Every structure is written in structure tokens, then in C-alpha cells.
């Protein structure tokens, strides 16, 4: 038989570089900061790194879900800040409890995802354009109820009265409570939520048929459709996952800030997209994956924590983030010749 095939008997140095290069870089970075920056290598510091990337990490996992089906969601940053405003509005102005506020935010995220998916799948609007439109829509919408003001307890309302409600302690606990873990009051709720979501998304994408089918759609939509996959449904679901996770991020943001801040969320969007793209390079996956995304977010977090501790000026941060992203994309696309 004249079949030929690629021989995989041993991995070359290049294969190792692609597979473990980025992880090695991460470890090297930790060691370097551990030596160079005083106080970097402590459990508190480690937990804090997780906390600083929790929100972007959660958003990035949502981005990953849309990237898997070959889509993209530009509206996540705006969804997160809308959830921030909505939760504040629910509690401060409408005087609802924490549960109602959280439920409203999650519902809002799901609906936004549904609309995004509907625009993209049914109306055939290209994904970047549909979610860009949604982004502007949300940035505007979050300002309407308060006429552009931030929401805080005691604020004056458009009708002249003052808001009587406040952030409920249960809600604030989402941002401020810490679980004991060997050390008292160590792990914040947001970190726990990040870890739970990361593991769930990883499990969902790798071990369930839904995740498998989503990867198939991202790689060859036509083939997936002819294999009997309801492609439209899955693509809409991907955008709903993205919307819900973005609103979870927004809820945690609100709980940490303790007020409803007007913000476009563009930095959240860019940081989380960067994390998801860096994730392509982790373990040479060369495709969107939950584990990579989590590592990507962590990578950025470690870098920024270390640099700040070493008193690096703020403008170096974006530079360094960009550098990491470029290197990661190089790992993904140039070194691994799979694409």
C-alpha cells in the first residue's frame, strides 16, 4: 500500500518547545519574581494573583466558548459592566435582595447571548459586527436608567428623591468574603468561582458531547452539519455561555466595588481576549481551550503582579501584555505547523 504518514515515534526539540515552552516560561517567571520581588512568593500573594485575574479569567472562559464554535464575542466587556450596573440598580434603587439581583444579571447575560446568537445565526450578521453593535447598545443602555450617573446608596434619583436601598451584605460577600484554607481568611469567593467555572468549562468542552460537537462546528461547520449536528442551536448556546459568564464577571466586579460604576468594559474585553488567545499556546493546543485560557489569564496576572511589586511604571504593563500575546501567537501559529 502506498500510504504515507507522519511518524510520531519521538518528539523533536521543536515539539517540546511548542508543547511545554509556554509553561516553562511561566515557571521561569514565577521563579524570577520569587527571587527578585520581595513578598512575591507567599500564599497571600498567590491567592491575590488569582483574585486579580478572576474577573477577566471568567470572561475569557466565555470568549473561549465562542472561539470554539468559530465565533467571537466583542460584547462581553459591556455585558459585564451592564451586569455591574444592573445589580447595583436592582439593590440600590429597586431595593431587591442579593438573590434577585444575581438572578437578574444572569438572566440579562443569557438574553444578550441569545440576541447575539440570533443576530449571527438567523439574521446572518457577521459575528464581529453583531457583537460590536451589542457592545454599543449595552454601553448606552446601562446609562439610561440613571442618566449617566454611578449608582451608590443615597444617590439622588432623576425624580429628585434619594435611593434608599443598598448593597446587601450577602451580595458584598461575593466580593469580600474569604474562605479559610490552611490559613484563615485566605481564598476570596471570586477565586473559588473562577476555579469552579474553569473546571466546569474545561470538563464541558473536553468530556461532554456538547463540547466535542462545538469543536467540530468550529473546525468544519459543514461537516458537522452533515453529521447531524444542529449547528445553529450550538452556536447560539456558545453565545449564551459567553453572555452568562460575562455577567458573572460583572456581578463579582459589583461585589468588589460596592457600587454601580459607569464603564465601557473595553479593558475587560481586551484582557480576556488576550488571555483566551494566549491559551492557544499552552501545551501546544493551537486551538481555544479552557485550561489554556485559565493559564493565559494567570500568566498575565503573575506578570502584572510581579511588575507592580517591582515598581515598574504603569505604561509598561500594556507593553508587557502585548509582548506576551505576540509571543503566544507565535508559539501557536508559526512554531506549530498544524495550521
Amino acid at each position: 500500500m502506498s500510504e504515507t504518514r507522519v511518524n510520531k515515534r519521538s518528539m523533536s526539540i521543536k515539539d517540546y518547545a511548542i508543547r511545554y515552552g509556554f509553561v516553562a516560561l511561566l515557571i521561569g517567571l514565577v521563579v524570577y519574581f520569587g527571587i527578585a520581588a520581595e513578598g512575591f512568593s507567599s500564599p497571600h500573594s498567590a491567592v491575590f494573583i488569582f483574585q486579580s485575574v478572576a474577573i477577566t479569567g471568567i470572561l475569557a472562559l466565555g470568549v473561549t466558548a465562542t472561539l470554539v464554535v468559530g465565533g467571537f464575542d466583542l460584547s462581553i466587556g459591556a455585558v459585564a459592566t451592564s451586569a455591574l450596573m444592573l445589580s447595583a440598580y436592582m439593590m440600590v434603587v429597586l431595593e431587591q435582595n442579593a438573590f434577585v439581583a444575581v438572578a437578574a444579571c444572569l438572566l440579562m447575560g443569557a438574553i444578550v447571548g441569545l440576541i447575539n446568537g440570533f443576530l449571527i445565526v438567523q439574521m446572518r450578521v457577521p459575528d464581529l459586527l453583531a457583537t460590536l453593535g451589542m457592545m454599543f447598545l449595552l454601553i448606552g443602555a446601562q446609562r439610561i436608567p440613571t442618566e449617566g450617573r454611578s449608582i451608590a446608596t443615597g444617590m439622588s434619583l432623576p425624580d429628585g428623591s434619594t435611593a434608599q436601598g443598598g448593597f446587601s451584605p450577602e451580595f458584598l460577600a461575593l466580593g469580600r468574603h474569604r474562605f479559610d484554607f490552611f490559613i484563615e481568611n485566605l481564598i476570596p469567593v471570586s477565586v473559588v468561582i473562577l476555579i469552579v467555572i474553569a473546571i466546569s468549562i474545561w470538563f464541558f468542552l473536553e468530556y461532554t458531547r456538547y463540547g466535542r460537537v462545538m469543536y467540530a462546528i468550529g473546525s468544519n461547520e459543514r461537516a458537522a452539519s452533515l453529521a447531524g449536528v444542529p449547528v445553529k442551536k450550538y452556536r447560539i448556546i456558545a453565545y449564551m455561555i459567553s453572555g452568562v459568564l460575562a455577567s458573572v464577571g460583572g456581578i463579582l466586579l459589583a461585589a468588589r466595588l460596592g457600587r454601580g460604576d459607569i464603564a465601557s468594559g473595553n479593558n475587560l474585553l481586551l484582557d480576556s481576549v488576550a488571555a483566551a488567545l494566549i491559551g492557544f499556546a499552552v501545551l501546544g493546543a493551537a486551538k481555544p481551550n479552557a485550561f489554556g485560557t485559565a493559564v493565559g489569564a494567570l500568566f498575565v496576572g503573575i506578570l502584572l503582579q510581579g511588575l507592580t511589586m517591582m515598581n515598574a511604571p504603569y505604561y509598561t504593563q500594556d507593553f508587557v501584555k502585548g509582548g506576551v500575546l505576540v509571543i503566544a501567537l507565535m508559539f501557536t501559529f508559526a512554531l506549530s505547523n498544524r495550521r
Partner: protein
Amino acid sequence: MLGTPIKIRGLEKRFAANRVLCGVDLDIPAGKVTVLMGANGAGKSTLVKIICGLYSADAGEVLLNDQPFSPNSPSAALQAGIVTVHQNINDGVVPDLDVASNLMLDWLANPKSAPLLNPTKIRKAAEEIAAKLDLNFDMNSMVSDLALADRQLVAIARAMAHSPNLMILDEPTSSLSATEAERLFRLVDKLRASGVAILYISHRMSDIRHVADRIVSMRDGTIVGKYETSPLDYEGAVNDMLGHTMTDVDIMVRTPDDVVLELQELQLKPDSKPINLTAHRNEVIAITGLVGVGKTQLTEVLFGQFTPAAGNLHLKGKTYLPKSARDAINHGVFLCAKDRGTNGVVQDFDINRNITLPFLSSLSTLGFVNRSAEYRITNEAIKKLGIVCQSANDDIGTLSGGNQQKVMVSRWLSHPCDVLILDEPFQGVDIAARRDIGAKVRETAKDRATIVLMAELDEALEIADRILVMAEFTIVGDHKNENVDLDLILEQVSGATTPQNLQKQKEGAAQ
């Protein structure tokens, strides 16, 4: 002016292990239309791509006016006077520019042209180009507003501005209506009269009858037949192209069991003749016919991708009207689609994931995929079809075409079904893999009806109990695969029985 501008000598090309051209010798004389016939994968498009500078040959040479010629890019070929009008019409035009700019596109793209545009000048030059071919376009209209045929004429007119030595027309009528095709043929006549050498590639007998001065048949990377004397022997050419002679697989025709699938008065197009077809368990039906006669539409109807113009389908006695692929699969109708690269293979997946993709719901509980069950199926498939690989986790991209096709076929063999449709299962597959796949399909055919569609007759002879011939979107022949009258089948395939039929075919093919 007349002569033989292009001579091809001993041209060879291989892609990895796959020999696509094995020593092609071909002359293309000026002032004549040389029709190149060949089934999918015969090497036509590779040959064209070498001539127009997209590929380079491994051995042999192309002589242009008796000078060795090996263009290293399409623009080099263009400079040398070799112009190609591609099958996909929109590859030849820029829809968002007006007609004048399209006609002058080569001038616009030339780095030596003046940086500033003079609209009047451009228009005038463009009008001259159009006038050469007696074409009358509104120079200001957008190409995107033109009908497909007009776009094609624009592309050809642009090509003609180079006063070409050789014009290659690759399936130019594939998306034209009958009247549009007529206009194209008139243009071809004009080109011929002006002494251009024309290489015309087509599957369509009606086209070929219209334009051919000579016919060259190609098969498995070599030229297998040349027909130059009038009247041209069209059947002989088709015969060469489909090449049934090498068949040496003996088929034991089996007795069909009960009826599984029934098509009643099914019309693929509002004006096509109805199809009646019955498929039984323990029966392998091959449907053969040239490209573009409705085979693909038929599979799409059966697999819920396309609603027929009229008619009924019955599956196991019940009305069957699938709304989607999922629906068809749930009814026990599987389709192994043609063009595995776009319709079948998921490049990012390994063998295992490619095989189990349609059946994940039956392989999982509460959404969680049962990995051991999945690997059991895959490993069995690898063993049964002899897929050459290291393990079930090999990326599909590392496999050869034949092995990828085996993966696709074994995907659909991995679960029992009532009707299995295989569309061009031997596309881009070497002979050994083809035999493996054919044998496995027949071996497992007992409990289902199997329908295999292909353009090549000898493939049909290798696999089928019954051979149906399709032409003009309907079934024109039904043969038991025992002592088959090959001449009759070829006649039916080429639609050449009576002058009346010929007329009809032209209409049918042109639509």
C-alpha cells in the same frame, strides 16, 4: 498564425505519494477548440494549473511556440499569453468595481502603469477591449449587478485583451443557463476564428458537441484517447474517460430483501422528469452519471438538505420527509458526503473523534462521553477497514487521502442504519483503498439498503448489485450488474441515443 503554440511532453506531477500526472503528452493547435475530458481526479485541473503557473511540474516540459516554458506564477503565464477563465466565475471578476475597471484590471494591477487614473482614457480602452469581441456593456455598471453569464463574458473579454496564445476555459458553462451558454459558444467561435488555441474543459456532452474540434480524454493522469476526425466519436471519448476496462472485481449479485426506501414521482426540478426508485435491504445500488446531472441533489433530498419540487418518499412504508441531517440520521438514513475535505472531515479532530461525531448522543450519558465505548468503536473500525495509523488518536490530517476516506466510510458503518448513501466514496482514493472500501460496504450491506453515487462507471461495476444511470436530473437506465451491456450504459450516460434526446439534454444540462 496557425500552428501548435502549446506542446506538452512527458509531464509528471505527484503530491506526496499520489501520482496525479504520469507522463502527459498533448498538443494544442491554434484556431481549434481542444476539449479535455476526464472524470474527477483524472488530473485535468493539475494539468491546467501547471500550464497557468500555479504548480510546477516534477518532470517533463511545456513548450510554448517551441520554447521551453515554465511559468512560476499566474502573472508570468499571463505575460506569456496564456489566459485562463476559471470555473468559478467570480474568481475572474471584481464584483465591486464597474465593468470598465474590470476590463482594465490587468492594467490597474501592473506596477508599471501610471499612478493616476484617467477615467475617460480607461473607459475608452475598456470599450475597445469589449468591441473586439462585439460585446456591448454599459461600462459604468457594477459587475455585481450583471448576470453570471455577463460576468463571465467580462472575464473572457479581459483575458482576450492580452491577445493570447492559449485560452483555457475551465468548465465555463457550469453555472450558465442555455441561452447564456449560447452566447458563450458564439464567443468561442469568434475566438477560434481569430486563431487562438483553446483548451476547453468540460463534463457536459451538450457543450462538447457544440464546440469541440478535437477531444482528448484523460484518465488516471495520462491521455487515454484522442479524437480528431469528424464526426467525432463522443461515445468513444466518454468510454475512454470512464474506462471500465480494468474492472476485475467479481460481483455476486445478491437477492434483494424487503423494500426499505421508495421514491415516487420525485422531481428534483420543476421541469425535470420524475424519478421512481425502490431500494431493498441486502442490495447495493450504484447511481452513475456525469457531473451535474442531479446526483448531488438526489442525495440532498434523501438527507434533508433540499426539498424536491414534487413527489413522495417512503421509508419502511411510512412517508419520509427529512427536515435536516439530524432528522435523516434519526430516521436511520446515513450519508457519507462527497468532498470529504469540506463536507466530512473535521481537521482539528483525531481519528476517533471524527468517527464518533454523529453518534455522540448514543455514546454518552447525561452529556458525558463514554470514552471506552467510543474507542472500542474506533479501534474496531481501524481494524476492519485497515486504516493505516499509529493509534486512534492520530490527527486526521496526518493520514493519506485514502485513509481519510476510510475513516469517513467507517464513521457511517459504525452504527446500523436502514439506508446508507455514499456519494463519490472513491474520490481521491487510490485503487487499493478503493477495493478495501468497496469490499467492506458490500460485506456489511445485508441489513440495509445501500446507494452509492459516482461518476466513474468502473467503480459502479465494482460495487453494485444494480446500476442506475442518471442524466438530466432523472434516471435513464436500470441495469442488473450481470453481463452488463456497457455500450448501452455509456450511451445512456452520454445521453446520445436519439437526436430528440440530444436536444432535451442540451436544455437539461444548460439549466
